[in-house]
């Protein structure tokens, strides 16, 4: 039991690193969302919005890559299953949003980014909870 504590600290540190990586990316997604939500944008504002969205997409890929390279095969399985759950949620949410957009209830382009950010949040939280409780 004495050697269990350092290993738990390593696991906690790994989770902390994922959060340290993931939280700024989620924040960047919020910034991209805010930049894109203004109507009647100038060309410069559109350029900032597109740049923020591009950096956000690259940052998501970077977080995914780092998480996978750090993980062993079991943690990779957990990450993949969490991503599958998040992907399914994003697909269903996008489908519902598309139907509501067709019905004129909402505007799809305003909801796309929140849905993607929500999917990423679901992935991070699911992976974290499964790693935390699978002891």
């Amino acid at each position, binding site marked *: 039991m004495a*050697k*269990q504590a350092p290993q738990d600290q390593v*696991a906690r540190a790994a989770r902390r690193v994922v959060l340290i990586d993931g939280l700024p990316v989620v924040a960047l997604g919020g910034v991209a969302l805010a930049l894109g939500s203004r109507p009647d944008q100038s060309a410069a504002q559109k350029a900032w919005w597109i740049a923020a969205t591009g950096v956000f997409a690259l940052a998501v890929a970077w977080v995914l890559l780092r998480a996978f390279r750090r993980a062993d095969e079991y*943690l990779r399985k957990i990450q993949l299953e969490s991503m599958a759950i998040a992907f399914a949620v994003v697909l269903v949410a996008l489908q519902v949003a598309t139907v509501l957009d067709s019905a004129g209830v909402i505007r799809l382009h305003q909801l796309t980014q929140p849905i993607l950010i929500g999917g990423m949040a679901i992935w991070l939280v699911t992976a974290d909870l499964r790693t935390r409780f699978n002891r």
Partner: protein
Amino acid sequence: MKNRLRELRAARRWSQADLADRCQVSRQAINAIETERYDPSLPLAFTIADVFDRTIEEIFLPDRADTANAPGLPREGISED
């Protein structure tokens, strides 16, 4: 897939963390294998076998009805001599 990981680890007085360090995986992975929630890949199974200085067949046992001849399982009604 059944395994004798807990038994072999207990015989050596290793914690899950000790075994995880030796196999270079997380403690969660060792725990999941021991509790049969996860079947390791072939490379990890070889690593575990190396760590215990056994063969894979002596550690991992197929989880099916026809395991009467699997090494490591007690053979009911079969004389060993």
